[in-house]
């Protein structure tokens, strides 16, 4: 058996995808012009699939902070946080994030993926129980492969399904750790967090919530779903990322647990990788200041969500269940999704395409993510383009054809 034989099914599927002429998984941004524009295939393209919720990647103050940090401290740390890679700035960033949440402790990781991977797999060990939402991100699933704990999935966003699984554990010894996400990355739906927290309290389970897509977007101060639902104090661990609203890369975990710092010498994805470069730490610190100082960005983001979501809905598209910074557009199958995606790119609009096995319940999606600095004109145009393509592809009813057929 050849090394790649086990991927035969996936290779077939990937070949299908590429017959459309473009490979959605190898799109090249030839030149990024702004948070909402890039040159792709030689033409200026509107970006509506970059997770850049506040558009801070080109914020002048964040850029200047990064440039200054490079001049002062160089391009990289060349070492891990437990060796030569902890600078005063890393520690300052941790303090600022802890304060942002009103929690005592914070650890910063080199990516959000590594934060979930390391924290989740380390918190729940041999004899413990890890309960995860069925639609969890890959980083959470990968953590489950690394842990010695028993892992059980519960139905997506269904507190009664979690409760049934906690109840079945009965009085078995071992910690219960429940993993949730603030906003789910494929359909933009948020967890019924209060109901989940109530169930966790009833059964004495720890709550870990990943606010990757909700940082900045939800809550009066942008702390995420834990803030907008008023349960920050009931969330034992809050994980998040710097690679979306904060416009850079990196991850974090905050907690009030007095022994939290032991994770610094137990979490392998923290210990055995180089720390964030000074430029990233500096731009993230500045981005966090911008998030605090400019709440209007949050309002703009949600205005844009409403324009796109309501616009597409009115045209008859099937969307994710609620308004969210991610708007998932359901398409009937994988090839329609790929073809639709390609037609949009030809029309100068970039979104993500998400197909099985990366999607829940085998759905095929165009995954759009909004930016606070999209203009209403850009989004109205996008709705118009998608409506046209939707009619061409038979995803939306073609009114004129129907009229002709009726005659």
């Amino acid at each position: 058996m050849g090394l790649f034989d086990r991927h035969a099914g996936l290779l077939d599927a990937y070949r299908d995808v590429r017959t459309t002429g473009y490979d959605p998984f190898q799109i090249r941004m030839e030149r990024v012009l702004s948070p909402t524009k890039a040159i792709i295939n030689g033409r200026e393209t509107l970006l509506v699939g970059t997770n850049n919720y506040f558009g801070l990647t080109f914020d002048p103050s964040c850029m200047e902070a990064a440039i200054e940090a490079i001049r002062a401290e160089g391009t990289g740390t060349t070492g891990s946080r437990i060796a030569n890679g902890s600078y005063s700035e890393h520690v300052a960033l941790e303090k600022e994030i802890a304060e942002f949440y009103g929690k005592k402790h914070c650890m910063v990781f080199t990516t959000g993926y590594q934060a979930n991977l390391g924290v989740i797999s380390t918190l729940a060990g041999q004899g413990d129980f890890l309960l995860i939402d069925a639609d969890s991100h890959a980083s959470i699933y990968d953590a489950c492969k690394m842990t010695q704990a028993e892992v059980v999935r519960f139905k997506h966003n269904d507190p009664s399904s979690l409760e049934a699984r906690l109840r079945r554990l009965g009085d078995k010894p071992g910690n219960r750790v429940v993993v949730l996400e603030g906003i789910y990355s494929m359909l933009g739906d948020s967890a019924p967090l209060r109901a989940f927290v109530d169930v966790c309290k009833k059964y004495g389970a720890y709550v870990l919530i990943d606010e990757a897509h909700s940082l900045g977007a939800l809550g009066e101060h942008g702390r995420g779903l834990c803030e907008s639902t008023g349960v920050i104090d009931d969330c034992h661990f809050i994980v998040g990322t710097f690679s979306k609203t904060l416009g850079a890369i990196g991850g974090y975990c905050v907690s009030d647990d007095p022994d939290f710092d032991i994770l610094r010498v137990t979490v392998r994805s923290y210990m055995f990788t180089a720390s964030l470069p000074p430029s990233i730490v500096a731009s993230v610190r500045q981005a966090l200041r911008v998030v605090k100082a400019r709440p209007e960005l949050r309002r703009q983001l949600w205005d844009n969500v409403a324009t796109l979501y309501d616009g597409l809905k009115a045209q008859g598209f099937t969307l994710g269940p609620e308004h969210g910074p991610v708007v998932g557009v359901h398409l009937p199958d994988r090839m329609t999704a790929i073809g639709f995606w390609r037609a949009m790119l030809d029309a100068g609009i970039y979104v993500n395409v998400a197909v099985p096995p990366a999607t829940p319940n085998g759905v095929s999606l165009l995954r759009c993510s909004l930016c606070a600095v999209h203009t209403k004109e850009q989004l109205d145009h996008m709705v118009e383009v998608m409506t046209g393509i939707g009619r061409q592809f038979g995803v939306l009813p073609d009114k004129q054809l129907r009229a002709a057929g009726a005659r």
Partner: protein
Amino acid sequence: MRTAHELTVENDGIADTMILTRSVSRAEVVREICAHLEPYQVGEKPITGETVIAKDLTIDSLAIMDMVMELEDRFDVSIPMSVIAEIHTVDQLADTIGDLRARA
């Protein structure tokens, strides 16, 4: 397909009362598993105890895990993911459910 549809309707109607607290025969468990797998049947080849779920049918790994979640709630057991990974045939899945029920 019809069986799957009927099951959905049945579950919608009675919700939680569908959880089986009484003793369940192995045949009943196998029947339930087969009903879930029916939509993924290849041609006329019947689904039996020896059917290798991931290989002999058109079901993908995620759909298998989702089916297991349904079976968990139907038979009031939790099957850890590491155990699911070791299950290959319909018989093995039925035995696992039976064992977990016996231990509960």
